[in-house]
């Protein structure tokens, strides 16, 4: 069999995969091994597949993904710490036919922004909230997050998270699922190709509901790794996440079409 030349390989008809045009060419600021890049990409792929490139407004948080607007090639707003759901609320109410999503980390969504998260979900704002839970404050150098696991060492829990001192890891996703305003609440991961595909399907379902004008908020948690903050190799961090975080933050749908899933 004759070998294909490079020119032949890169012909459009031979293309099996390409980066979505809704990711910019800017090099990601995330650490190698981090799940943010995958979460960004599948989110943007969904927007592209739904043909909403020109009708989407995304809200970036404060945290590791503070620069999400550098990578996501749609109109973006950079919110102050924790306020993305309030920002998104106003945009969606003022532009009901546009597609609006927030992309937030655990400190942003579940600590400083808890009030905005709960109330946007409780009002049933017709937005998609994508929540990256890596159990640590990556950008500021590895401090404890509201979702940090018990016993986990961070720079502000140097002897491990102690319930008596720091309280419990917050299951904000279960909490918002209890609110009548949420329609679709689900928890996923992006640490394997199949997990990323499942997560992408969930994100697509969430955006499709918004585009269809269905009532209620869509809330997607992605349990993710922080290999640098956890001081592990990427592979070790993914294994640690599966062994330690998934039992506490179980993957799967929590609420679908406004109904809590019986477990």
């Amino acid at each position, binding site marked *: 069999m004759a070998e294909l030349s490079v020119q032949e390989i890169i012909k459009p008809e031979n293309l099996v995969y390409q980066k979505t045009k809704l990711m910019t060419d800017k090099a990601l600021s995330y650490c190698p091994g981090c799940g943010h890049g995958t979460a960004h990409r599948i989110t943007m792929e969904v927007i592209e597949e739904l043909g909403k490139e020109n009708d*989407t407004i995304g809200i970036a948080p404060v945290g590791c993904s503070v620069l999400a607007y550098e990578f996501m090639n749609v109109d*973006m707003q950079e919110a102050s710490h924790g306020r993305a759901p309030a920002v998104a*609320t*106003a945009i969606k109410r003022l532009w009901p036919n546009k597609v609006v999503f927030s992309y937030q980390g655990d400190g942003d969504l579940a600590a400083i922004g808890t*009030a*905005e998260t*709960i109330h946007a979900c409780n009002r049933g704002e017709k937005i998609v909230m994508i929540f990256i839970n890596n159990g640590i404050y990556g950008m500021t150098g590895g401090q404890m997050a509201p979702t940090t696991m018990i016993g986990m060492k961070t720079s502000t829990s140097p002897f491990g998270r102690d319930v008596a001192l720091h309280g419990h890891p917050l299951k904000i996703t279960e909490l918002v699922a209890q609110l009548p305003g949420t329609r679709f609440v689900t928890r996923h991961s992006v640490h394997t190709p199949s997990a990323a595909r499942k997560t992408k399907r969930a994100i697509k379902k969430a955006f499709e509901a918004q585009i269809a004008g269905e009532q209620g908020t869509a809330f997607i948690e992605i349990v993710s790794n922080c290999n640098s903050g956890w001081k592990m190799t990427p592979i070790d961090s993914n294994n640690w996440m599966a062994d330690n975080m998934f039992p506490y933050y179980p993957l799967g749908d929590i609420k679908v079409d406004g109904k809590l899933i019986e477990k």
Partner: protein
Amino acid sequence: MGELKLMKGNEALAEAAIRAGADGYFGYPITPQSEVIEYLMAEKPWERTGMVVLQAESEVASINMLYGGGGTGKKVMTSSSSPGISLMQEGISYLAGAEIPCVVANVVRGGPGLGDIQPSQSDYFQAVKGGGHGDYRLPTLAPSSVQEMSDFVPVAFDLAFKYRTPVLIVSDGLIGQMMEKVELFDPIPRWTDEEIVEMHPWATNGKPKGGERRIMTSLYLDPHVLEEHNYKLQRKYAEITKNEVRYELLDAEDADYLFVAYGSSSRIAQKSVRLAREKGIKVGLLRIITLWPFASEIINEFTEKGIKGFLSVEMSAGQMVEDIRLAVNGRTKVEHFGRLGGVIHSPEEVLEALEQKLIGG
């Protein structure tokens, strides 16, 4: 002649928002301005003009709703009173940094802390010296009547969009709560979405087909880039200072002394001028309308003409008086008189202060 109504200042502000073609109001109740959102919720402007009204979970959420809405090119507004405005300061700084137009009204009450719910002017520093973090300024309009609570709303929106900046309206509990006759201006139609897209190409309301995405941010990690951004903001503030100073003079032509006052205090000082003139004291009033940019130039002119002194009349311990002193720069006497903590001074007290601090002093 526009429609005449007897209204509270807060109600006039709310009605003016609808008539100014506002697209959204986001607010949280606080005395003495809760009538603003009460009026809007009862009036249902979503049926009249399509305007969105939402009671937010906090002032923090309200101001960030303005960030979201203003960042898409819509006309958005909030109102609150002193403690609530303090909560908004972080958001206001972000709005200034990201150059997002919006209108924020402060119906000032006594402070510090929870203070009281009586009229005060002790938030002047917060309004004109920053309030939030960073090098920024806010055009600040100070209505002195229910009429101006209405009239200044479209002015504020015009300034906000002309300069892409948050604009403050600073009144107080007296103007917010009192009822006066107001002539309402004719409604200005809301911009259509198409008009917004056309007029505000910077706004993030969906990437233009075949165009570049837009970003609303106040983050510039490279210090040299941030410095450039800050210089750009400063050039804008210089432009506003050049073009947008507003004030009013009363009995000032032959005056030996001038009261300088804004808002409720200027109404009281008007009476003090009459009382003084009856006694043969030549005093006039410089009524400040824009707290920032400040009327430094006219104060300089009066100083050059040899005015004997200025008395700043404020319901505070003396805040605006510092800006008068900066403009005067030691060339003539500048004194302050004011009651604190929500106590309103009488016209007689103001005149007495003039006599004691400037004429006799």
